[in-house]
């Protein structure tokens, strides 16, 4: 009962109340409260990522799994970032600077530490380069894949290939210099592309609405880890 029915009942009641507030004005207060609560829950829920990461990497270190030494890098980076974030936020360096004599060795150390632990700089110069470069690798793979696998074997594939090549040409200055390419690109995007994406969008919309209803009514319950 507690493990199965109660969660389903909570979901149903919450869903019905949220749905009804669109039509019953006195429920607006409940709606606003629910939004606030759900935002707090979302903030706490983010801790799960941190806990999982620490668990996975400490386990790897304990078991001396393959490439376990790199887990030290992850855990060190995690701690470094958290320490940097808290020191920057709570103004520790401002306080340390205030206690230093101008030009002293101590001031130099504090300044160096402050710069090495600059939360925003680490984000801009470590996280952005790595993540952006990882995704940019896809440029090489998409070019290679297009060369190797993009073949006009059937009518449908030919259609896809022609549309792709026109759009590729029509979205860059060099291609736009070819007469008519820009106009055809705009037409492809505005008309057949819009029609196809609209069809998909309506289908997905119907699917989303029906799935939401199924969740509220307890028909769909896999999200709770229940199979039936």
């Amino acid at each position: 009962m507690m493990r199965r029915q109660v969660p389903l009942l909570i979901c149903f009641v919450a869903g019905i109340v949220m749905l009804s507030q669109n039509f019953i004005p006195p429920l607006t207060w409940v709606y606003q409260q629910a939004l606030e609560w759900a935002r707090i829950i979302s903030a706490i829920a983010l801790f799960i990522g941190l806990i999982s990461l620490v668990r996975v990497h400490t386990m790897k270190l304990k078991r001396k799994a393959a490439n376990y030494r790199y887990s030290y890098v992850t855990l060190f980076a995690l701690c470094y970032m958290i320490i940097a974030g808290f020191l920057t936020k709570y103004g520790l360096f401002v306080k340390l600077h205030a206690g230093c004599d101008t030009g002293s060795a101590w001031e130099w150390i504090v300044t160096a530490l402050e710069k090495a632990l600059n939360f925003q700089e680490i984000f801009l110069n470590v996280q952005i380069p790595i993540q952006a470069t990882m995704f940019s690798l896809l440029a090489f793979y998409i070019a290679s894949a297009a060369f190797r696998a993009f073949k006009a074997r059937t009518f449908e594939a030919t259609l896809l290939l022609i549309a792709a090549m026109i759009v590729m040409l029509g979205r860059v200055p060099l291609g736009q210099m070819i007469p008519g390419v820009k106009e055809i690109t705009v037409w492809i995007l505005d008309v057949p592309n819009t029609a196809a994406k609209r069809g998909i969008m309506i289908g997905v919309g119907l699917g989303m609405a029906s799935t939401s209803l199924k969740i509220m009514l307890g028909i769909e319950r896999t999200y709770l880890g229940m199979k039936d």
Partner: protein
Amino acid sequence: MKFLFFLLQMDRRIVFVLVALAVVAPLIMPLNLPIVVGDKVRRLYDAIDQLPARSRPVLVSVDYDPSTVPELQPMTLAVLRHCFSKEIPVIVTTMFPTGAGLARDAMETVAKEYPNLSYGTDYAYMGYKPGYSLVILGIGENFQATYPSDGYGTPSSKLPILKNVKNYDDIAIMVDFTASAAYEVWIMFAHQKYGCKVGAGVTAVMASDAYPYLNSGQLEGLLGGLSGAAEYEKLIGAPGTATIGMDAQSIAHILIIVLIILGNVAYFATRRHREPAQTATPQQGGSA
């Protein structure tokens, strides 16, 4: 025929080198190809441009993470520069925790160029708030309850720009920059539920999916990928990294089109000369 067989069995690293050269060469020797502004970009530009100085603020949401910075940061900067140059108040926010640093960096970069404008009065950085769609809905109910403080920790009540901002009624237009379907959530809640005008700047991957919303008028305008950013840079007369990149983009696209054509020519011309088994799998090597 030998060349065609060579093409079919070519090491993928040769393609990698060609792609790298196609991008590097125009970056070193720019071609300065002309940028043609499309109507989707102009629509967003006009929607912002017609706002009077010191009007209701524009809400800019930086809903992307570092992986798509090269595409989306130039358009965020271009739209911010447009607003700052016209002295239109701007509120910058993000629904992604990793977008917080990017939003702050974009706002601070542009703010440095306009020392006549002051923080809190002309622009504000509200930072990240957890909950995604719940935050978007929350703004419609009560802005200050959703954002009790800005991204630096200053209470919202102390920011003059927010004095008259109660909900979406007090926002002139919101522009979402995203690499995900976040712009659809803004349309669904901010536009459809609360009637706020929504514009979007999306990665090229997402751009074609947004066209139905443009056609239905649910989106005010759209910047799609680096070309969208370059077009906006042209409209505001401030060429930036997107404009620089468009030459390389042109050459790389031409290279990929040539590669596709060569791949097809080689495949079909050698079809009869290959064994049936080879026809099914014409290439050697692992993944693409």
